[in-house]
């Protein structure tokens, strides 16, 4: 039995593809009559892609997750976006991280607010992978742990009690004091996380290694409710096919190994893959696409109504695109996240997670 009251909520693993992932190149709308006209070169990728539902096709480099999709544990949501669209990476990432599209005054992250709303008892309720603070996990009072790697967690200095000296020196600093306390509390817990010795199954990339650590921590049942991790490098203005083939391959293989490694724990775990915006519907002269609006999300978990692409497809004819020539968003991304938090993870207060947002009806992902 778990020692943490909140762990019956399971864990949300939120993967943010930074740079604007081209949703139309991940789940390719191959059967849309205007698709090849907009993307005569990039569109060639549709041939090697595998079928999703007769209309959409999955990019060939995403093949490792195709089985999970067909087994019904992975769903795609397409033409999804934020209502206040912007072509600025900065603004769009801010909006997504802070969960308040159009409002730049929000300083804390949506995941951190979600965790805080449950009054977590574990110091490790929110884990951000990497050395830097992940924006979606930023919160004024909630301590969020960032984990760069599970290897050699702890102080190098040999003096027993060095932690207390460091802690004492930091006391009184409103930023570093709490961070120092939280660090040493987390170190103690993380040092006890067992190593299953299967890290080599994961891709030998930063993402693959992080997913390996995420699986280890979730299996150790240390009260983690949410994990945030970032993968950069999706800003495919030029030579997109080459660029995304590498990125998709890493993403899909990491997700596949994680799904298999987690086994039964996937019943209470949800993996959410999203990006700040999709890209322009038509390709540019550099073999890439410029910043757009709607894109696609992926949702993975045992119990998700997977094997389908949830979408109200807006179409790709010039009058169906928005005035910039972007795929029109027909689903608010907050609808997707709200449903998962509410119906799958039982979060009590969605109003604080997405202030000002009210659902117009869940998609039926859960």
């Amino acid at each position, binding site marked *: 039995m778990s020692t943490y009251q909140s762990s019956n909520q399971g864990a949300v693993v939120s993967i943010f593809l930074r740079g604007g992932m081209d949703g139309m190149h991940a789940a390719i709308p191959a059967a849309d009559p205007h698709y090849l006209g907009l993307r005569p070169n990039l569109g060639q990728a549709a041939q090697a892609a595998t079928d999703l539902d007769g209309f959409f096709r999955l990019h060939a480099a995403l093949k490792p997750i195709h089985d999970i999709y067909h087994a019904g544990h992975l769903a795609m949501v397409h033409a999804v976006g934020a209502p206040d669209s912007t072509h600025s990476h900065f603004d769009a990432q801010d909006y997504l991280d802070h969960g308040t599209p159009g409002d730049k005054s929000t300083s804390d992250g949506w995941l951190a607010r979600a965790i805080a709303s449950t009054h977590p008892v574990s110091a490790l309720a929110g884990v951000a992978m990497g050395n830097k603070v992940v924006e979606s996990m930023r919160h004024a009072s909630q301590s969020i742990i960032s984990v760069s790697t599970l290897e050699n967690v702890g102080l190098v200095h040999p003096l027993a009690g060095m932690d207390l000296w460091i802690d004492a020196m930091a006391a*009184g600093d409103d930023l570093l*004091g709490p961070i120092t306390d939280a660090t040493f509390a987390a170190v103690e817990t993380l040092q006890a996380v067992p190593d299953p010795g299967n890290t080599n199954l994961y891709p030998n990339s930063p993402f693959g290694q992080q997913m390996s650590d995420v699986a280890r921590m979730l299996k150790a049942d240390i009260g983690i409710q949410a994990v945030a991790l970032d993968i950069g490098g999706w800003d495919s203005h030029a030579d997109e096919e080459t660029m995304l083939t590498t990125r998709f391959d890493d993403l899909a293989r990491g997700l596949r190994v994680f799904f298999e490694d987690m086994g039964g724990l996937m019943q209470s775990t949800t993996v959410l893959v999203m990006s700040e915006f999709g890209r322009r519907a038509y390709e540019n002269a550099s073999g890439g696409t410029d910043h757009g609006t709607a894109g696609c999300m992926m949702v993975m978990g045992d119990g998700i109504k997977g094997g389908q692409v949830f979408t109200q497809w807006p179409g790709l004819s010039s009058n169906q695109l928005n005035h910039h020539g972007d795929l029109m968003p027909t689903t608010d991304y907050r609808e997707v996240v709200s449903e998962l938090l509410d119906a799958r993870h039982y979060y009590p207060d969605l109003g604080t997670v997405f202030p000002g947002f009210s659902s117009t009806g869940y998609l039926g992902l859960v």
Partner: protein
Amino acid sequence: MDEGRRSFIRQSSAMAAAMALWSHPAFGKLLSKDQSVDPALSVLRRFCLGIHPTDVEAVYQTGPDAWLASQLRHGGNDRQVEADIDRWYPTVGAPVADLLAALKQGRIETSDVAAQLKGAAVYRAAHSRYPLFEAMVDFWTNHFNINHATPALRVLKTMDDREVIRRHALGSFRDLLHASAKSPAMLVYLDNATSKKQGFNENYARELMELHTLGVEGGYTHDDVLAVARVLTGWSVQKEGAQRGTFTFISAWHDYDRKRVLGEEYPAGVGQPEGERLLDQLVDHPSTRRFIAEKLCRRFLSDDPASSAIDTVEAAWGRDGDVKAMLWALYSTPEFQSANVVKFRRPLDYIISMIRTTGTQLDANGVRMVALGLKGLSQTPFDYSPPTGYPDDAASWASTSGMLLRWNMASLALGYRPGSPMPARESLLRPESLVTRRASPKKIVKELVDALVQGVIDNDSHALLVSFARERSADLPAGSGDVVARDVANLLFASPWFQWH
């Protein structure tokens, strides 16, 4: 450690926490009213990535005003430093044609070119006699961020660093922007190099306004982005011949139709000159001077600078964005002299500060160790992929794992290895060289506090350090003063007094 000691540390820390309750919440630790920082040290603490003992000597010799004047007048390449760089990192100074020829003949790899530029950046920051110049190089490097993402960028960034950033770091913003807009590395990084009338690319156009000049709130629209992209069609890079790898304007790719940018008409039929006009329009836009002034204040004062300070710096902009005048203006603000207006050190400042304050001389191997440290802390020069450049606020860097890595980085640099009870004699940092031989624990602390944090520390923390030094002294065999010095330095490097400046 005995229980009495543990409870003493806990009490001190509880006391400090209680004191924090009745003072206002604050990032960093504050000095009490009776403590102040010598203005001579303020100028070093704000303007240097790290303070070398010779910087302190220089500022005491001439006074802070003269020190600043001299840094601004002479700031540039340090001849002694450049001599080492020419020897160790020959690609850094090589003309682009020579570099491309060497690459073509297989004499070097693009990864060597990238590694050499990274090495030079570290070495210059660690050893230049012009630390303010190097601080501004770092500022503009991030402002006009380009990363070593592709083979082309790994080569072209070398020229951008030399001919754009370092050439104009203390010059005018107008010159900087014009140079950057014609920098092959920038044109490739933000995809303008392939932007043609048919299927133009908006990436550079957008970041030019959002990140380089006006700022995201600077008052431009999506239509302005499109128009700017069209103005800059044909601004590209020579792909062949003797001029390969240099700027070129490809007339056949340029959109000669009329455009409208930020309310100004651009008539039809104009080629490259309309791009030059556009850059001047952006330099002269009021949003740009505000944006740059604010960014300078955030870099050198605090994450949330007083608007009066921004006003002061903005007023010094002049006609072209005079960098020297703006730095003088910064220096003149009351916030600049206040020890309680603090800035969090990013990993680069943190590591370079450890090197400079201890008076450590790096050799090529030391540079490699520093580069590894920067990689571990996620701030390798020229490796940040988003065009924003590395973040410059405390909240982005002060994370749990980030702090743990810092503390460990300090231990490793001081010669400790996981599992070893004593530090290796050979180590990157040797703070014992700053301490009088056979000094008492109290004296060791005093000398290291002066050298490493320029005496800026409150009485409670100072007392804690003395207790720590005494305890280490008592635990270690006689004659272990060097180890005590390293441990005191380690605790100081881990403390807030070293994270903020």
